[in-house]
């Protein structure tokens, strides 16, 4: 055990944690929007929209995140018109490529979580709203969405933790996030166990915080 290395690598790893957290929060925000959008499409009766949404979630859940990042980071640069368009400003940055890949990935899982939450809402709630003469739109925003969010909290908490672990893949496209820095320190010092303990500890701490935060929300919004 090399305690000095553990102490000296801690600040570096903590700095890298900021990158991880930034990646995580951006991806979760975009992913939630995408997920909600595709969950609503899934509930749509239009077969085309429905199938499109199903296809999206099937493809992104059926392939590894690593492939998705590589396609976006290495692959999209190959398309000529993308290179010459303004989107290239975003796509040439590994940072944004990683965020796009993570958002699309977590969006697929989130859409499944939200869809099943929407489908399990007690019909009585909607009928009650109907019989009170509340419009469809207000029923959706004021009844269905809040109940769906409450119901999907446990599953979504898991998804946040999975995404936190997923951000480690950013290190494969040259980003120096927590795993990236950890790998760098391991490969320069050849002390994998010490670095693993520190970096793993930081990850576990974040998992612990997320887990308890979701639990707190679940309790707060239970009915």
């Amino acid at each position, binding site marked *: 055990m090399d305690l000095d290395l553990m102490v000296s690598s801690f600040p570096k790893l903590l700095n890298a944690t900021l990158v991880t957290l930034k990646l995580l929060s951006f991806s979760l925000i975009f992913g939630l929007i995408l997920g909600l959008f595709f969950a609503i499409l899934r509930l749509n009766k239009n077969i085309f929209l429905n199938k499109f949404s199903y296809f999206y979630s099937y493809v992104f859940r059926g392939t*590894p995140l*690593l492939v998705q990042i590589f396609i976006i980071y290495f692959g999209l640069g190959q398309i000529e018109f993308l290179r010459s368009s303004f989107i290239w400003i975003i796509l040439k940055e590994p940072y944004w490529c990683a965020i796009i890949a993570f958002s699309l990935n977590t969006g697929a899982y989130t859409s499944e979580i939200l869809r099943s939450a929407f489908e399990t809402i007690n019909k009585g709630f909607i009928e009650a709203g109907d019989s009170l003469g509340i419009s469809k739109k207000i029923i959706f925003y004021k009844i269905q969405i809040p109940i769906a969010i409450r119901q999907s909290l446990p599953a979504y908490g898991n998804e946040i933790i999975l995404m936190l672990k997923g951000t480690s893949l950013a290190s494969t496209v040259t980003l120096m996030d927590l795993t990236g820095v950890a790998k760098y320190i391991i*490969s320069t010092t050849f002390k994998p166990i010490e670095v693993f303990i520190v970096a793993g500890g930081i990850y576990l701490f974040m998992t*612990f915080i997320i887990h308890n935060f979701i639990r707190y929300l679940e309790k707060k919004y239970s009915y």
Partner: protein
Amino acid sequence: MDLLALGNNGWGDELFFATLMTIAVSITAMIIGFCFALIFTPLKLSKNKFLNFLGNSYTTIIRGVPELLVIYLLFFGGSGAVMYVASIFGYNKYIEINAFITGSFAIGIISGAYSTEVFRGAIQSIDKGQFEASKVLGLKKPIYFLKVIMPQMLRLAVPNLSNVWQITLKDTSLISVTGLVEIMRQSYIAAGSTRDPLFFYSFAAVLYLLLTFLSMKLINRLENKYRRGY
């Protein structure tokens, strides 16, 4: 399509063998995972506080730490650990561990944590009456476990194990960082030498989709088999 030609002019056969490698690693990892689950599920269910703590730390740590970090730990630390153990027995030469073994072991540890949770959940949801009934009937413990618990547990566990299989299959893409030539690594090599990353990574995505799709079909059959009588 020229890119996928067989032989030396294309990457078709290389990608085919890479796919076989992915399947081989996934299956090996799954089996190693079952071995871990076999050890840690009883620990998690044990009433002894220390054993319980051991079981819980395994699943919490592995499920809370990124897969890539676990792979790096084994990749950089694996041969060191084996050499340390070997030096105790008086063998001091350099030992290099095969990438296949390191990779499947790393993925196996991860998949084992998920399998442990699945088995624990399945065993805990079996009715207590079953245990009492077998006690009254005077069944011996191994028979009770094999003939009463196992069949019921498998029915409950198989759907969740299919999720674990999917996760394991997708996690194998990560061991491409250790240099093992599976789908991801082969696509990386092909993309590098042909300068056509879009095609090869998309093709890799299709291969993974195909694998997940086919394994789902197979697992559904298994599920039906274990659901008989319900």
